[in-house]
């Protein structure tokens, strides 16, 4: 299998070594994600976010989103997925998909870690990866 990222310069690593590629202002140290493009880019330095934070809020996507969503499945066999915001202390609160077996485990304040998720397959059947969040079981002692 030859997995590819959904976008270049979005994240590095795979699974538990995933880090998000963000930017920090050289002027006031504020963070931006995704990093600014164009002329503003020169005002920022590249920084990595992660690997861990806390769940700020979440919901469950119960119907298949319209285009431009291109994840797996059709309207008929769509599998709901969780999305949420994770707060990375002193940095940013980031939105992303959540990889979780049982939606009932999600609670605001849970310790979370970055990971990757194969959210679709490309035209050659190879997985396309995006960054995602998962419950930090090591920290929560849930498993």
């Amino acid at each position, binding site marked *: 299998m030859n997995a590819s990222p*959904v*976008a270049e310069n*979005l994240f590095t690593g795979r699974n538990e070594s995933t880090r998000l590629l*963000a930017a920090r202002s050289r002027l006031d140290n*504020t*963070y*931006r*994600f*995704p990093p600014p493009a164009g002329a503003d880019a020169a005002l920022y330095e590249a920084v990595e976010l992660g690997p861990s934070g806390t769940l*700020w*809020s*979440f*919901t*469950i*996507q*119960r*119907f298949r*989103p*319209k*285009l*431009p*969503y*291109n*994840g797996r499945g059709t309207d008929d066999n769509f599998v709901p*997925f969780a*999305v*949420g*915001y994770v*707060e*990375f*202390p*002193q*940095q*940013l*609160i*980031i*939105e*992303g*998909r959540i990889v979780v077996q049982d*939606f009932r485990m999600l609670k*605001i304040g849970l310790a979370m870690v970055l990971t990757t998720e194969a*959210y679709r397959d490309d035209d050659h059947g190879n997985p396309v990866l*995006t960054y995602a969040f998962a419950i930090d079981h090591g920290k929560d002692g849930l498993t």
Partner: protein
Amino acid sequence: MKPVHIVGAGIHRFGRTEGVSGLEQGVFALRQALTDAGVEWRDIQFAYGGSVSAGSADAMLPRMGLTGIPFVNVSNGCATGGSSLLAGCAAIQSGQFDLGVVVGFDKHDRGAFNADPRQLGLPAWYGETGLMLTTQFFAMKIMRYMNLYGITQTTLGRVAEKAFANGTLAPHSWRKSPVDLATILDSPPVSDPLTKYMFCSPGEGGVALVIASERKMRELGLDGPCIRAATMRTRPVGSFEVFAPALEVVRGASATALASQAAWEIAGLGPQDVDVAQLQDTESGAEIMHMAENGFCADGEQESLIAAGETRIGGRLPINTDGGCLACGEPIGASGLRQIYENVEQLRGRAGARQVSGARIGYSQVYGAPGVSACVILENAIA
């Protein structure tokens, strides 16, 4: 604020009207507003109007009459109607004009809106991976709010129950049947914690208002509520808005809080002065959170206020007396103006079975992507 009055109001019923274009619904509303005011189209000196999905508003001109007036197409997302009214007020306050119209209409496809990331300066992956949905934003905003302030699922249900009950009393509403609390709570989740009956749907409709300077109003022997404030604000740093891949850790105020504060200041009025309010209720949670963001209560107080029926018609502060977006649907270009139309009907004592007795001050607030809010305060000026 130099007085501007709403001397006529018209509406094309919201919902689904097969075979009638959005533009036609706008024309219908505009003609009704002119009739309501008792003026002719040839008397009108300017127009501001817009739709998001149903074409240019100035395409109404051949239908209304080519009188040569300035007609400005307004395109400002969910604040399109609010922005049109703001511009119309400014046109009169500048002294350039005395009598004009503000119009909004729309006709959307069924199902949730699908947004194009590139149109909003966002990367393609944000839409492709399934994060760019207004429904998710509203769900996550209320999910956190419930966690912070102890709002329960039952309260979400009560807001929807009230909306459908009020909708049965409004001739212009889409939903004409009440829905009981258990049905609302047990209906399939769309985006947890929000169920199917807690979300409004994109729809169709048209609204028009005739606005006039005080001098012109008296000269023509007309009357109508005075616009005490009309404001519009965009998202500040630290706010939580639709379509945000990242938020600042240090949280701040919302676009709604800014627009609201400005409206109170301009009007010289406060939340305690309001008799009837129309607050953006894209879903049940939005109405609850907007009660606090507009200053009508402290965070968390909604739980007891709503349980006590204070936001129902007959309560201390009736909210969304025509059923709001939940019962009327959300044709974006018309939705903010529908709130104002409803307040005009309430202040003029024309709201029939849903009339709030003695209503003198009406407040409205529309909110939407990508983080815009517009507030209007009306005062009954009819002696």
